[in-house]
């Protein structure tokens, strides 16, 4: 028989039905007999990705990050996309698919998170390496499905100065590591201490992605795991704003104005095109 290999999940079948699991173990823990009773959602999330239970500090850090990321608000492109589904009465799944598709991008999305985490892998807490990396322009790969990043990952391409929520999140998350027997947030602490130098090198203010990338590195996640978590953790806001706009209806949703630069006009629509 063909098989599925996994190090994450183990099941034992019910005695009378091989298609129903009697026990499910996640990384060795009994999900319904132990975790359900004793673990929090955020602890279980950490366990799923990392394979080990988090320390109290790690759970607090992931919890704080999850709150910071849960809802970027209706101005965010991914949430905007989800609302485009909600307002037309599209299926719930399609609203989240829209949020995932747009929120996957290299500008404000999960791809940016991955790139920011790769920068952490390459530069660590070496300020000179960061300054060299941030000074270099991103190189476009014509054979890559991802468009070239337009700005250094983790920084706000349209920012004036580091926004208040970003500074609040960085201060809180970095503070979680202080005063504990095992410092669980060294990257966050270093980021807070060197934010001004990094912003100067990038020519842009730090964005939430930059904070989240440092937090996820401190939690031991790989860039690929960080990309996945970013997609997951931002879905709650997309979901509720999509539902809300469905209630408000399309007459209360922006439709914007368009200025067509090559309109052939009503009398000459049959053969006109971009060449007009």
């Amino acid at each position: 028989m063909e098989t599925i290999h996994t190090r994450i999940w183990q099941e034992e079948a019910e005695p009378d039905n091989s298609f129903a699991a009697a026990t499910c173990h996640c990384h060795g823990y009994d999900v319904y007999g132990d975790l359900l009773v004793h673990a929090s959602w955020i602890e279980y999330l950490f366990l799923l990705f990392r394979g080990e239970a988090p320390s109290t500090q790690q759970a607090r850090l992931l919890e704080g990050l999850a709150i910071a990321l849960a809802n970027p608000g209706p101005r965010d492109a991914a949430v905007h996309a989800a609302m485009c589904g909600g307002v037309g009465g599209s299926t719930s799944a399609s609203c989240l698919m829209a949020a995932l598709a747009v929120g996957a991008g290299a500008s404000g999305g999960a791809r940016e998170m991955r790139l920011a985490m790769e920068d952490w892998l390459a530069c660590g807490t070496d300020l000179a390496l960061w300054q060299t990396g941030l000074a270099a322009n991103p190189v476009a790969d014509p054979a890559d499905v991802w468009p070239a990043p337009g700005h250094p990952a983790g920084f706000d391409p349209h920012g004036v100065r580091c926004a208040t929520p970003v500074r609040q999140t960085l201060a809180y998350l970095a503070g979680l590591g202080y005063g504990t027997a095992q410092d669980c947030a060294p990257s966050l602490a270093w980021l807070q201490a060197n934010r001004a130098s990094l912003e100067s090198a990038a020519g842009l203010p730090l964005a939430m992605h930059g904070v989240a990338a440092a937090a996820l590195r401190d939690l031991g996640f790989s860039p690929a795991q960080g990309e996945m978590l970013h997609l997951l953790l931002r879905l709650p806001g997309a979901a509720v704003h999509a539902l809300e706009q469905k209630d408000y209806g399309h007459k209360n949703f922006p439709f914007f104005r368009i200025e067509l630069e090559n309109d052939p006009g009503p009398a000459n629509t049959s053969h006109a095109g971009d060449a007009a």
Partner: protein
Amino acid sequence: MNGPQLLEEHIGRLVTRMGAIFPGERAVFRGQDLFTSLGDLDWLELYAFSITGRRYTPQQMRVLHVIWTHTSYPDARLWNNRVAALAGTARSTGSLGIAAALAVSEAQIYGGVPQLRCCEFLTRAKIMVDEGADLEALVHTELKEKRGIGGYGRPIVPTDERIAPTMAIVREQGLENGPHLKLAFEVERILLEGRWRMHMNIVGLDAAICADFGMSPREFNYFFIPVFLAGMPPCYLDAAEKPEGLLFPLPCRVMLYEGVSHRPWRSKTPNI
């Protein structure tokens, strides 16, 4: 047989008449060789065949092509297209943006849901009228029970600019006398003469045409899944080619907050 025994029967194998690839050799598509028997089909003919298992006349295919070309608008304000465009401005991939935009097209007030409902209504009404039912009474009942008829009325503007050019091609191909098409225009007449003042939109016309071509409501629904597709890549590309984040940027002042006043959080559960 049911339950786990039924599942046991199907472990590790798929019994199907739909098709398979024989790597390095050939591909079978609904019982026919893709490269020989179906090799002369254009893409839309193959797509229609993939859903219905039936072939269509050249005249019917001309109309089916027009249905598609008249339904793809590269306007990034439209909600489904806007998803593709937002993917471009957020520097996501074209595949992600367009696939999500297609998924969003299965909406209640446009796209997938009205398409299916309209075709189901026209098909059902046609059968009932043939059996002697009164169409006006059927329309009244449908409006009373479902508060609308898919394919009639439009969320932004009352009329549909696609009706006339599509009908021109239908007439050109000599397909204007189909029974569902006649019934669809009769429904429009009833709706316009009543207090509803609803014109037929392109969904109503397309549903009637496809019903006349022998498509079931489900087949019509599946045929229409990618009908907005050609309008989406331009929306993605336009946003992707401009600087990031420039598509419909939203400042904080656009939000009109209507919720409760500010208040402090008081945790009712202990921390982790």
